[in-house]
């Protein structure tokens, strides 16, 4: 496989963030492979913890992730209807490893969510496994590691981080 420049990965992650901020969630879902996972572990867990024996905030396989997207696009998803406004900032992007046809990528994030006069902040790092192809990437794993000690301030993770 050809060497991949960090800027290519950054372009992809910035585009991902834009889809989330514009609430184009069905398009965002298409970034994922059919066997993809999207995880938000609880804040007291190890980086590589498994949802099979640890309680996560979110542990979606591709099916549950597609259902999450369906839910968030409904009027009956009360927490997000009307939609909140969000801004996903992505920084400190690094290619950690290239194994076979997969890339391990990490980034730092700050995501703001605002609604009804209240702004919440989520921050931490994302660990991705990306599969390059056709001049872009697909996401095989997105693991969102929150740095906060818990979620008392925000009370929920109703958006996609």
């Amino acid at each position, binding site marked *: 496989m050809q060497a991949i420049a960090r800027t290519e990965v950054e372009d992809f992650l910035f585009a991902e963030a834009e889809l989330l901020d514009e609430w184009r969630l069905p398009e965002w879902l298409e970034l994922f492979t059919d066997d993809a996972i999207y995880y938000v572990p609880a804040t007291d867990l190890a980086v590589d913890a498994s949802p*099979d024996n640890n309680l996560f905030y*979110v542990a979606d396989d591709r099916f549950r992730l597609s259902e999450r997207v369906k*839910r968030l696009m*409904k009027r*009956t998803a009360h*927490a*997000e209807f009307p939609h909140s406004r969000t801004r996903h900032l992505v920084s400190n992007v690094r290619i950690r490893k290239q194994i076979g046809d997969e890339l391990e990528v990490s980034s730092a994030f700050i995501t703001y969510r605002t609604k009804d006069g209240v702004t919440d902040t989520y921050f931490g790092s994302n660990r991705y496994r990306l599969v390059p192809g056709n001049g872009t990437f697909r996401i095989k794993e997105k693991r969102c590691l929150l740095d906060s000690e818990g979620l008392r301030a925000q009370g*929920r993770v109703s958006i996609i981080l």
Partner: protein
Amino acid sequence: MRANWKLLTENSIDGYHALTTHATYLDYLKSATGALAQVAFEGSARDLGKGHAVLEYKAPWGRPVAQWIPSWGEEGKRELSRLYDGLLTRFGKERADRIATFNRNLFIFPNLVINDIMAVTVRTYYPAAPDFMNISAWALAPREETEWARKYRLFNFLEFLGPGGFATPDDVEALEQCQRGFRNSAEAQWNDISKGMGKENPSYDDELQMRAFWSNWNEHVFRVPA
């Protein structure tokens, strides 16, 4: 959560809001093949005295102890039969059926909830301000648990419960919106919780349990019976 702590008492033991507040959770169960048992919502509420109360009811979701749903497959069926047989041996059929197939939302006055629903959660909550509470919640697990049971219990928990589930964020939204509404208390100094009042056997989706809580709270705070 940006709401008065007493609202979480109401929410944790309210049987009436599931179909509307959690419409998307039920949609999810409907679209996941075999995620619903052929069981209707049905049950009762009990005032346990001194502000404590419990709902006990049947519901169509899977329960790790021990209501099987088709999406848990043959392995799940074997595991749940094993658990059920254990209950049968220890408690006899009547109590085993009650443990396995009934959900319980149990409230211990003033701020402890033990909800034995699609998973067992223990939660407690303290006011940090009149309009903000800190919540701690735990997932309760059996000491002896197979890998299968642990995995599916955890999945059942996070699909509904927890801050990233398909249901709890909507509870948070509802409570925060109620808190906003209560800012108008100068105009309306009451909240209607009369559902099922005067019924001999209040249903799980009536509001007997709310009245049990509020009456006792009122007695403690104002030193007069409500």
